[in-house]
């Protein structure tokens, strides 16, 4: 049993209105010194058995087709 984490973030060139809204809220609440916020997604998967290279490749495939949309998003995958 392993936990695989996939972080998905909008590509830097894509506008992130949620991040902007949070930045605005920080300002209004007086939290200073934050110059940028971006919001993405985090997936935690419980994977049965051992995660060897072949399995990892399969999971990367899953992330690239299902969890992230490569047109607008980048992702990172790691075993925890």
């Amino acid at each position, binding site marked *: 049993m392993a936990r695989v984490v996939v972080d998905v973030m909008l590509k830097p*060139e*894509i506008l992130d*209105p*949620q991040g902007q*809204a949070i930045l605005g809220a920080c300002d209004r609440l007086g939290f200073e010194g934050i110059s940028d916020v971006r919001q993405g997604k985090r997936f935690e998967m419980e994977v049965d058995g051992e995660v060897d290279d072949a399995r990892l490749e399969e999971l990367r495939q899953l992330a690239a087709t*299902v*969890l992230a*949309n490569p*047109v*607008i998003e980048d992702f990172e995958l790691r075993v925890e």
Partner: protein
Amino acid sequence: MTARVGVVTFPGSLDDGDAARAVRVAGAQPVALWHDDADLKGVDAVILPGGFSYGDYLRCGAIARFAPVMAELIPAAESGSLPVLGICNGFQILCESHLLPGALTRNRSLHFINRQQRVRIESAGTAWTGGYSSGQEILVVLKSGEGNYVAAPETLDDLERTGRVVARYEGGAPNGSQREIAGISNEHGNVVGLMPHPEHAVDELTGPSADGLGFFTSVLAHATASAPVPAGPG
């Protein structure tokens, strides 16, 4: 014989009944298609209706793309033979399936928007807009939370150059869409994705106008004009 237009129901589709009604009002015959059946029932055209397929939990349209019915639809659409209209969630599914370029993201306001919306038809050269004249303004319904169209600048330029921007919002994009894009098509003009809802504007009693009917009469004319299309290999 009149044209048969398939309307796909995914779990979570909501405007499938409305799309079928619009097909009927236009004088064609609606045919119910089920997400889990890899069978297009030999229809002349297909509508992917609005709604929240599979709850839209991951990303709008991301899971619907893998439905068995899409395995039949994607090659037929890619070949240019099968007219496909994706409305709202259907547009999102078409982008996720890479039948159309770009992606639809959260509205700039971060809120769902429901309103009557003026839209300009930019291209009458598709299977779904042949009945409009280019530059014609229509009043339809916009209702979506993730209708903000984004694509790489080269993609946008390419869409403009090849006349594949099908519709634009009048008076600025309420959702932040790049270049006010409300709808686009593929290079063959058979696949059209549209964020606003023409099927909610086929009758003045229940919609803001009857301006949306043109999408459905256009495909009817298109289907009757083209020779019958084989349903693909197999």
